[in-house]
């Protein structure tokens, strides 16, 4: 239960309800507007209700053939939201797709005439996202064995993308100062967690030297990746992207929560840091010190605890009532434990 309660960002299939029926009708009209009256949608399914997005799977059926697509709609908008608006996610997808990384191809953005709020449509990559299946099913043994090295290669290619192709990202609070951005959010959710203030102090005292800014995914982990039996075939969920040290992605993928119980396999519960670093450097990434990675792992614990506080805050304020978000409020304590234990040298 703990792992599930820690994982509010991955939902379950939802029941078709009146909201879904309305969205389906409007999506059909949106598709006809762009692809002609012969086009229609079929096989609509709600995949997840995440922290910031609703994801619908559907087929675009045209006389010439059928194309599996995905609709992403924004569901959370607040002045303190840490998530990029859909228009910016769409532009990131365009750039990253053009650079040949394994991501869905952006197809079209929603417009006011669609009456579907803010979001976009992209291609659907076939594969599996469920952590439990990916970490235990024998069919994915080869994919697991490749995971850390493949992640190192993906990070190297991602971090090599010229950041001037995404000028709007320089304005985000996370791009200016990741730690300061998270501290501001922590305070906005009420603060008052001793471990987190001790963590902030440790992070301030141990900041690594400044490095050139790179494009950071910001939420790269099992659950936000599509794998098939050969390995990673899709990197999803770009709403946390920002500019900063590439090591931010290293720290996040090694978070204890994303090891799903396989504590001795830090990279996504599947591989070792040494494989990740070797592949990163073999593909043009820079050399990194253990101290720098440790800093980003501690920072990642802080960030993840603050995200859990955000979910609980949404529940407690009544804006987004949800049992999983209520659990997030109590689950923050486990991440605080990981933060202090990581500083003390555990989970390495």
């Amino acid at each position, binding site marked *: 239960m*703990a792992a599930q309660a820690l994982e509010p960002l991955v939902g379950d299939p939802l029941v078709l309800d009146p909201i879904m029926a309305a969205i389906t009708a409007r999506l059909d009209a949106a598709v006809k507007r762009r692809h002609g009256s012969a086009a229609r949608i079929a096989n609509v399914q709600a995949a997840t209700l995440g922290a910031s997005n609703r994801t619908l799977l559907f087929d675009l059926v045209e006389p010439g053939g059928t194309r599996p697509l995905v609709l992403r709609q924004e569901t959370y908008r607040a002045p303190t939201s840490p998530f990029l608006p859909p228009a910016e996610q769409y532009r990131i997808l365009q750039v990253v797709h053009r650079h040949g990384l394994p991501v869905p191809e952006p197809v079209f953005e929603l417009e006011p005439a669609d009456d579907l709020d803010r979001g976009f449509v992209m291609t659907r990559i076939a594969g599996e996202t469920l952590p439990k299946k990916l970490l235990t099913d024998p069919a994915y043994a080869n994919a697991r064995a490749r995971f850390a090295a493949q992640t190192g290669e993906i990070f190297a290619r991602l971090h090599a993308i010229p950041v001037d192709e995404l000028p709007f990202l320089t304005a985000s609070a996370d791009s200016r100062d990741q730690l300061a951005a998270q501290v501001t959010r922590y305070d906005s959710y009420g603060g008052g967690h001793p471990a987190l203030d001790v963590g902030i102090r440790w992070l301030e005292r141990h900041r690594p030297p400044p490095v050139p800014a790179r494009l950071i995914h910001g939420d790269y982990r099992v659950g936000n990746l599509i794998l098939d039996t050969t390995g990673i075939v899709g990197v999803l969920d770009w709403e946390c992207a920002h500019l900063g040290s590439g090591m931010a992605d290293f720290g996040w993928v090694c978070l204890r929560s994303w090891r799903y119980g396989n504590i001795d396999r830090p990279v996504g519960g599947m591989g070792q840091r040494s494989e990740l670093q070797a592949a990163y450097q073999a593909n043009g990434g820079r050399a990194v010190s253990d101290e720098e990675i440790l800093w980003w792992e501690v920072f990642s614990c802080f960030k993840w605890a603050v995200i859990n506080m955000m979910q609980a805050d949404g529940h407690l304020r009544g804006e987004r009532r949800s049992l999983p978000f209520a659990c997030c409020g109590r689950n923050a304590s486990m991440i605080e434990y990981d933060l202090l234990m990581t500083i003390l040298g555990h989970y390495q």
Partner: protein
Amino acid sequence: MNRKSSAQTPGSPERLRALTQDRPDIPEILKTVTEFINGVAGRSSGSGSERYNALCAVFLLKVVERELAAGTVAAQRQMRELTRLTGEEPSMTEPYAAFCASARAGKLDAQWDDVMAFALRQVIDKVRITNPDYLEPTHREAVV
């Protein structure tokens, strides 16, 4: 009916409160509701989100059960430690506020090991309620 389920200290205010009400008492009510929700979670029919929400509900009820059983020993110990570390009585509305502000501002750097020890103990006290199995075995025992 005998009263036997209470985990509280004999003569404590919590015990007295329980004795002034009829059974089922709070642990028994929690058990009853948990059994019902476990039934929902285990049903083969119903949607995935319904089962997931039921699991979350059981998780939260377990938190309530452990928090009630643990009583106030850890909270009282923490207040004594806070007074020692910060040199002042903690606020009864925001007991950690002074510690957090001082730690973040670097005013407690000279006693960093004690600050880390307090923060870790405070977190362990919370995780013992939230999900004790998450802790390293040496951290699972209660500290008076």
